């Protein structure tokens, strides 16, 4: 049986752990609200952008003159996996889930004889994938200094990817991130960004009658790189919201577990204290009887 002093220390330490997890939960809740707002603010832009791109892609996409970003390189031999994760841990299965999806995909591609290259955004994803796929890393984008994800950050990532694409380093790029459903549910998602696919968007019939200034092709060439930035930006925002949501529920669980542990330890502490008292009494009584 552990002695009383140890138990007391243990209870004190679990109590301070609970305080920390509670505080983290509240911080995550506040950050989640902000992240959700940011994600919602970006939605009108993304929606309109995709609608216009869908129209443009539908009218130009079929021709041979279509930009490579839309048409692809005609091969899918070299695959770039862009893995977006958090910079920090303590957010439940958030990072692990994204890494798992990316790892699965990488193994599938390798089994099919493709070459896999990995670009990580966020420290945790890099750490999680380093052991299995460390040899396939081609780069890492560090966002640990960034407090609030801005469009400029997404542009930085997009520029990195586009430079590699222009240099012919890969044929297909896929984004891995967690889609925010609600506080307890975040779905790890893979989204292909190069070659761009806008077929999902609703193509309005009116799109064919637009005048384009400059030409359709020039606009498309101008907008496709922006499209990559936009998709990365919205993925980063989704990821941000998911991370905070995951952290919030993870910390909520941790706080609850700590509470349960404190209750258990307190009962044990009281029991052993009573045992000590009983022992002392027995000693006194048997001492008195012996006289």
């Amino acid at each position: 049986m552990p002695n009383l002093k140890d138990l007391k220390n243990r209870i004190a330490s679990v109590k301070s752990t609970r305080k920390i997890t509670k505080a983290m939960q509240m911080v995550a809740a506040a950050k989640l609200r902000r992240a959700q707002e940011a994600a919602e603010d970006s939605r009108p832009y993304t929606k309109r952008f995709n609608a216009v791109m869908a129209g443009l892609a539908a009218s130009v996409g079929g021709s041979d003159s279509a930009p490579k970003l839309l048409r692809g390189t005609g091969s899918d031999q070299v695959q770039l996996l862009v893995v977006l994760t958090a910079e920090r841990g303590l957010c439940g299965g958030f990072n692990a889930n994204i890494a798992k999806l990316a790892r699965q995909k990488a193994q599938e591609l390798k089994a099919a004889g493709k070459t896999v290259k990995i670009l990580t955004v966020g420290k945790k994803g890099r750490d999680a994938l380093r052991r299995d796929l460390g040899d396939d890393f081609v780069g890492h984008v560090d966002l640990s200094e960034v407090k609030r994800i801005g469009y400029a950050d997404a542009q930085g990532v997009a520029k990195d990817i586009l430079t590699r694409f222009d240099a012919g380093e890969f044929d297909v790029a896929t984004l891995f991130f967690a889609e925010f459903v609600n506080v307890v549910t975040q779905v790890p998602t893979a989204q292909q960004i190069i070659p761009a696919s806008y077929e999902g968007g609703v193509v309005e019939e009116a799109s064919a009658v637009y005048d384009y200034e400059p030409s359709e092709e020039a606009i498309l060439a101008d907008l496709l790189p922006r499209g990559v930035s936009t998709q990365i930006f919205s993925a980063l925002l989704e990821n941000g919201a998911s991370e905070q949501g995951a952290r919030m529920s993870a910390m909520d669980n941790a706080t609850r577990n700590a509470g349960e542990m404190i209750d258990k330890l307190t009962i044990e502490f009281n029991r052993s204290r009573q045992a000590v008292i009983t022992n002392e009494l027995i000693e006194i009584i048997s001492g008195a009887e012996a006289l």
Partner: protein
Amino acid sequence: MADTMQFDLVSPERSLASLQVNAVQIPGAEGDMTAMPMHAPTITTLRPGVLRVESSQGTSEFVVTGGFAEISAEALSVLAEKAIPMDEMTRAHLDELIEEARQTYKTAKEDDQPHGLVEDAAKLLADMEALGTHMSL
């Protein structure tokens, strides 16, 4: 004929304006144009410049850099990469933008990049500087 149309100005980070307007002057890539209700459907890319919005509540101005505008008979959406309301715009802000453009130009020139990127960057820089004089800052 309707005398107003729906105008939306959105940037990736936030939605800046959504209102009924009479006319909007757009800094198009191939020259300024003013869109009024019943305009022919047009899509144009933007150069850095000033977007002037005329509505029944008066005129408001926004500084936009890059992006595109989608004009139809009864609506106009401007999707700008960066959009800043004129009254929030300061000299320091502009200097930052110009500095950014200058950097892009410099790296583009040094790397000797293809597809006229150098000219694009040079044009961007010139546009930014013209923007400064335009705003009389």
